[in-house]
């Protein structure tokens, strides 16, 4: 056994002998040193990795790790200093190339050296918290080459110079730029930042500061924005091509600040080319560009919004206050619609339907539309116009579209109850004169109003429609039941439910006997089938068709009820005085004057002759049947002189009625609020009432106060004894 062991011992030379002989270290190190030199001389192919690895492995195994590490460091420093010199000596434009070449060499060498020294890296380096071989190589490169005094400044200057040239339009070697910035990144992001990025940003800031100053002196707003946009795109491209991605936001922020932020006010307010001009001239592309660019800067959008809002308000104010422009209500509203269309288009095309802008537009419109207190009336007249005549050559869809747009304007109105009053009046006129083009369009409008304002708003209006339908049915059954009587005139009666219709109370005038006869028959028929109702003839409305002979020619006249009464008198008399007529018909003064005026003083419609021949009616006038009346048409319509728009006194009256109607609504709101809250202070009541009623109108705080007083008097509320501003609900 023993000899066997001995034999074993002899045959196998022990290779793992510890050797503290310094000479053997030097021998091993020399091998490595030479190998490293060959590597840096591009001569690595002849080396045996396995042998070199083992050499280093053994050194570390024998506790020479530290010595090896230090020798390595010194060695690397030496090679780098050599490289440094050759880079420094390179002339002119080849500087960057030489730097790059050496960098690539060094990287390759480091990888090989790291592999050879793998054992040291994984054991000695870790245990002793030393910098690993590869990182050590990078650090040394940074300190000895990149930050060498003769290289550091030159490197930065070269990079910045090239970037400047590219900005000025030259082509540069981007590949070289990319590998250089990548090198800096590899050395550590703080190296990239300190040695390149920071100075780059500073230089860029002053470049763009200068350029933007130049541009703004010589360009108009649109041109300037184009240039800014172009520069921004350039910088983005530049970074993506040869800088680190995280520089992107930093450089764009610089451009944003220098080119956009710093000149924002001046650009927006620029004369002849600024934001307002773009609006006026519908410069969609420029507006779009401005929107996109100013999105990037603080307060960019809010500034645009506020300029837009005040411009819209101002031009809107001019629109609604210009006496010329408000002469024709339909034109007026059409202009409003056009203005709305214009800005809707701008917001849609250039501002990507941005909600904030839409809201700003809405409040501007709301603001100026209500500056003219006739807006509600005019909007109703516009709808009236459309529903009477229809849109020429338009189909159903177009009418719908127009009405929808009008609804948008309606929403802006603060005094919706005023609109309601006028709408009712106009609708009544349309329905009673049969002057509506499309029943469907009328109904459609009602539905829109109901959707917007609720059932209350439209219930009475719907009542009007129902009345007409019912009247139609009633007339049919009246004539079905009537025994043949071909002599009496044909009547067509519209029975209106009181309260649904905006009619003025009227004392009936004296009707001609032929009419009396048939109308009484109708009254009997109606009351026979409807118990407990009362019918009153509204002689201030209605019309009649009369056959007349003038100088041998037959004509058919279409006249109002009053006019009919007057004309029928001339069947039994040739000439009558004003007084005669007044007595015989019982028509009120004002109406009679207007009636006679339209019969005698209007050219082409003068079926009566007046003495004396003057424009105005006086109570001393006499009237004769005008046998000399001629007209090209057989059927002649004689309208009554009536203004479509309200006269001043009528306007006042309508407004007064609106104010009267508001009082109970305010009171109802107060009571509702107090009933649920029990105790509330004055200001809160005002706020709550306003909130509740604002969909119909804006209540006046003074009026609210008066209503509160009235409710206190009627013991719905009481004042608190201690605090005069507090109110309490009395159950």
């Amino acid at each position, binding site marked *: 056994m023993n000899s066997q062991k001995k034999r074993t011992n002899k045959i196998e030379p022990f290779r793992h002998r*510890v050797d503290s002989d310094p000479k053997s270290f030097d021998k091993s190190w020399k091998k490595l040193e030479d190998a490293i030199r060959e590597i840096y001389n591009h001569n690595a192919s002849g080396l045996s990795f*396995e042998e070199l*690895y*083992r050499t280093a*492995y053994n050194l570390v195994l024998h506790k020479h790790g530290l010595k090896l590490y230090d020798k390595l460091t010194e060695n690397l420093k030496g090679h780098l200093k050599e490289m440094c010199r050759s880079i420094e000596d390179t002339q002119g434009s080849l500087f960057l190339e030489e730097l790059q070449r050496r960098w690539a060499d060094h990287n390759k060498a480091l990888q090989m050296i790291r592999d*050879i020294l793998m054992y040291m890296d994984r054991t000695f380096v870790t245990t002793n918290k030393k910098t690993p071989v590869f990182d050590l190589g990078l650090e040394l490169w940074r300190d000895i080459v990149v930050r060498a005094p003769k290289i550091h400044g030159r490197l930065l200057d070269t990079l910045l110079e090239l970037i400047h040239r590219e900005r000025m339009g030259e082509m540069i070697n981007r590949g070289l730029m990319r590998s250089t910035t990548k090198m800096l990144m590899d050395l550590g992001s703080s190296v990239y930042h300190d040695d390149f990025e920071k100075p780059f940003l500073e230089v860029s800031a002053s470049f763009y500061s200068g350029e933007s100053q130049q541009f703004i002196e010589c360009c108009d707003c649109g041109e300037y924005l184009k240039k800014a946009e172009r520069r921004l795109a350039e910088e983005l491209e530049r970074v993506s091509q040869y800088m680190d991605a995280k520089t992107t936001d930093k450089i764009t922020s610089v451009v944003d600040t220098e080119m956009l932020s710093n000149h924002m006010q001046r650009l927006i307010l620029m004369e002849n080319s600024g934001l307002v001009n773009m609006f006026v001239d519908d410069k969609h592309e420029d507006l779009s560009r401005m929107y996109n660019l100013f999105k990037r800067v603080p307060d960019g959008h809010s500034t645009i919004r506020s300029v837009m809002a005040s411009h819209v308000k101002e031009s809107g104010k001019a629109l609604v206050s210009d006496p010329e422009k408000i002469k024709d209500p339909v034109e007026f509203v059409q202009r409003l619609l056009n203005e709305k269309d214009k800005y809707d288009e701008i917001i849609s095309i250039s501002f990507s339907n941005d909600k904030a802008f839409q809201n700003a537009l809405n409040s501007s419109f709301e603001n100026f539309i209500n500056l003219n207190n006739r807006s509600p009336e005019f909007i109703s007249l516009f709808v009236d116009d459309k529903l009477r005549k229809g849109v020429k050559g338009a189909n159903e869809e177009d009418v719908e579209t127009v009405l929808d747009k009008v609804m948008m304007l309606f929403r802006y109105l603060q005094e919706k109850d005023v609109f309601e009053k006028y709408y009712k009046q106009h609708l009544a006129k349309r329905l009673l004169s049969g002057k509506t083009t499309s029943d469907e369009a009328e109904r459609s409008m009602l539905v829109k109003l109901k959707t917007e304002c609720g059932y209350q708003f439209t219930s009475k209006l719907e009542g009007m429609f129902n009345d007409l339908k019912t009247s139609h049915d009633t007339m049919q059954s009246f004539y079905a039941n009537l025994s043949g009587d071909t002599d009496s005139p044909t009547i067509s009666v519209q029975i209106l439910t009181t309260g649904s219709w905006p009619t003025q109370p009227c004392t009936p005038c004296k009707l001609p006997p032929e009419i009396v006869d048939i109308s009484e028959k109708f009254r009997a028929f109606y009351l026979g089938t409807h118990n407990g109702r009362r019918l009153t003839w509204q002689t201030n409305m209605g019309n009649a068709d009369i056959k007349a002979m003038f100088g041998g020619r037959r004509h058919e006249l279409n006249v109002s009820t009053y006019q009919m009464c007057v004309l029928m008198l001339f069947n039994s008399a040739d000439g009558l005085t004003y007084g005669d007529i007044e007595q015989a018909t019982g028509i009120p003064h004002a109406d009679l004057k207007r009636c006679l005026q339209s019969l005698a003083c209007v050219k082409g419609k003068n079926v009566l002759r007046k003495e004396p021949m003057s424009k105005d009616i006086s109570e001393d006038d006499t009237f004769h049947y005008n046998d000399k009346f001629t007209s090209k048409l057989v059927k002649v319509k004689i309208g009554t002189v009536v203004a479509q728009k309200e006269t001043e006194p009528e306007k006042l009256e309508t407004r007064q009625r609106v104010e009267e109607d508001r009082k109970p609504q305010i009171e109802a709101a107060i009571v509702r609020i107090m009933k649920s809250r029990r105790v509330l202070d004055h200001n809160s009541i005002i706020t709550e009432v306003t909130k509740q009623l604002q969909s119909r109108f804006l209540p006046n705080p003074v009026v609210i106060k008066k209503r509160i007083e009235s409710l206190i008097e009627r013991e719905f509320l009481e004042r608190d004894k201690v605090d005069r501003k507090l109110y309490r609900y009395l159950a």
Partner: protein
Amino acid sequence: MVDHFNSSDVFFSVGGETFHAHRALLAARSPVFKALLLGSDSTAEACITLNDIEPATFQALLHFMYTDDFPPGAHSSSPDSSDDTEMLHRLLAAAHEYMLDGLKLMCARKLEESLSVETVARTLGYAQMCGCSELKSKCLDFFTAKKNIRAAVTEGYLWLWHNFPSVIQEIKVIWALEDLQI
């Protein structure tokens, strides 16, 4: 796979013997082989000579890299076989040099099991050299167990004394502590 000539793309000449292998597999198992075969300092040469390793050891190394196991018949059933122990020592050292941690662990475990008065000293030395702390501490325990005092007079102990003085110090310290306790 080790004997499969066709798809192998490198062969090693070790102590006169030739071994075929596949670069990719060796590179995957050991960073040292990776650097040797695929790294920037790698050689494209088809044949690589390895000095300073025994053929048997290299074969066992290869076998491990391909199968994660010792070669069959590498050990006799007798745990005391000194040939086996020396083989394990050499294999342990090779595994350490070529950074095959799995193999190191296997060798260390096997050596732990076969600790004897004759082998403990050398095993301790190899444990120290290759950084196998568990094996080392087992060896120390073995050494300092009273009944194993005879281990101090082996050739292995002498070898240890020459090459790993720090370990000898450790042993002496433990013995001293033990003496104090007596």
